């Protein structure tokens, strides 16, 4: 994977999260404490600052910086992202492919490590109405793409679609973990904010990586 490109992807995700602030707060206000958009906007700021402080960082080092940035906002979401990104960075480091473009299998491996960190730390399972409901399908889509020999753009597009479908499916769920978990039936009818913000970040990052639709990957 190309470092400059990863940086651009991260910054695009940060921009997209900031642009979604109001919508994410709205979702969190339904059943939570209404701050998720602010928290992700603060995360975007913190990440941008970390990247500015280390203009040369790339690859796994850059991912680790992003982890620190997101982690610095605390809350429920901070440590989940931080641990996931640190594990993904470790996986990336293990692959030793930071110079070239990653394969679908490499992307899948990193994503899997990150997803495992989230469930390992937060103990949420699919159906609990959390970020896991968007993350798990995305990882599964990458695995499916890998199995069918799809190319990177196709695999990433499938991951976005799966994450989005997963986030949308949370609308019908009842939360059982976190702040929203005492709402019961009343929380149904609105998507989980953490799942929604994951889709926002993923889509912005992937779109930047792939470049204008139909073009070659940005980092190629």
């Amino acid at each position: 994977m190309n470092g400059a490109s990863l940086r651009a992807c991260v910054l695009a995700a940060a921009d997209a999260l900031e642009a979604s602030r109001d919508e994410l707060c709205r979702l969190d206000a339904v059943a939570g404490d209404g701050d998720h958009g602010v928290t992700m906007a603060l995360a975007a700021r913190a990440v941008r600052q970390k990247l500015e402080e280390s203009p040369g960082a790339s690859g796994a080092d850059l991912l680790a910086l992003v982890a620190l940035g997101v982690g610095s906002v605390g809350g429920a979401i901070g440590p989940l992202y931080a641990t996931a990104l640190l594990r993904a960075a470790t996986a990336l480091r293990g692959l030793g492919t930071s110079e070239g473009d990653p394969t679908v299998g490499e992307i899948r491996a990193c994503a899997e490590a990150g997803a495992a960190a989230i469930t390992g730390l937060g103990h949420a399972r699919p159906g609990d109405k959390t970020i896991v409901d968007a993350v798990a399908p995305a990882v599964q889509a990458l695995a499916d793409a890998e199995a069918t020999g799809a190319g990177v753009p196709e695999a990433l597009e499938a991951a976005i679609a799966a994450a989005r479908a997963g986030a949308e499916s949370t609308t019908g769920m009842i939360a059982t973990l976190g702040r929203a978990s005492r709402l019961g039936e009343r929380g149904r009818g609105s998507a989980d904010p953490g799942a929604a913000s994951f889709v926002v970040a993923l889509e912005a990052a992937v779109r930047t990586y792939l470049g204008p639709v139909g073009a070659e990957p940005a980092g190629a």
Partner: protein
Amino acid sequence: MATSGQAGGRYKKLINDPFAVVDEALEGFASAHADLVRLAAPRVVVRRTPAPDKVGFVVGGGSGHEPAFAGYVGLGMADAAACGNVFASPPPDVVLEAIRAASSGRGVVTGYGNYAGDVLNFSLAVELAAAEGIEVREIRVSDDVASAPRNEAEKRRGIAGDIIVFKCVGAAAERGDPLDEVERIARKANAATRSMGVALSACEVPGSGRLTFELPADEIEIGMGVHGEPGIRRGPLEPADEVARALVQTIVADIEGGVAGRPIALLVNGLGATAYLDQYIVYRAARRLLEAAGATVARSYVGEFITSLEMSGASVTVTVLDEELTALLDAPARTPRMVVW
């Protein structure tokens, strides 16, 4: 339908940059109370004069609940507070910094409300501290009877009961109790404490551009938490006596053996915008009900102990007392927002 909120469904605030509220307020706080506390790191408030040889006590949680948590740093209560963003747990490195500052070699107890974010961040910090050789015990305050049934009491969130627990733990640590003892007190105080609240209107997280929830003009939310997490039911705005009855009945029903013939501490907490007049009217009603149930109200606390920004509402907390807890509540404390003398 009219929605709650100061104006146009929103609140007017005396702030500058909505993303800088926590750091600006902490700068003000630390300079206003410089005789008692100082900022050891950007979000870490510690005693001006550290206690040299005792079990350390670290409290913390999201901001927006002032005077919790930094307001309780000082003699007889906490050694350090880790402060997060508004309604967001502080991250592990901030908690770790607070633990380090509170550690004088005899171990540290951390006390915080039982919320997913706080559990995640504090647990990570405790692991990091252990790696540095600091033994840390965690006490997750879980007094809110509205947040989970009694058979899942460990899932309950922490609200105004924090203050009762923190006071007892702080006093135990201050008098030199060893780590095991302080942890025992913490668990005992938490087990003896139950709360339930009601919200009349929402608040607004700075920068969110919206209220944390919408409540019709003539409704209240019974059992709501200190972040605007939904409660157990919505109902019409009733007289204070009826609201107090709903809270006290649920609390008393949750206390094994009831309150008859037992001394209790009664705490009424204002969420932010509720007038003292109203708080004392709720206190009066709660006290009458508890006395009618046979309890002896031995200690009373009325005021804003843990708020939700400018939310309107109040909670009632009952702690079943014994001599040990009573003595700890009465022990001297000198902190920016709680002075017992």
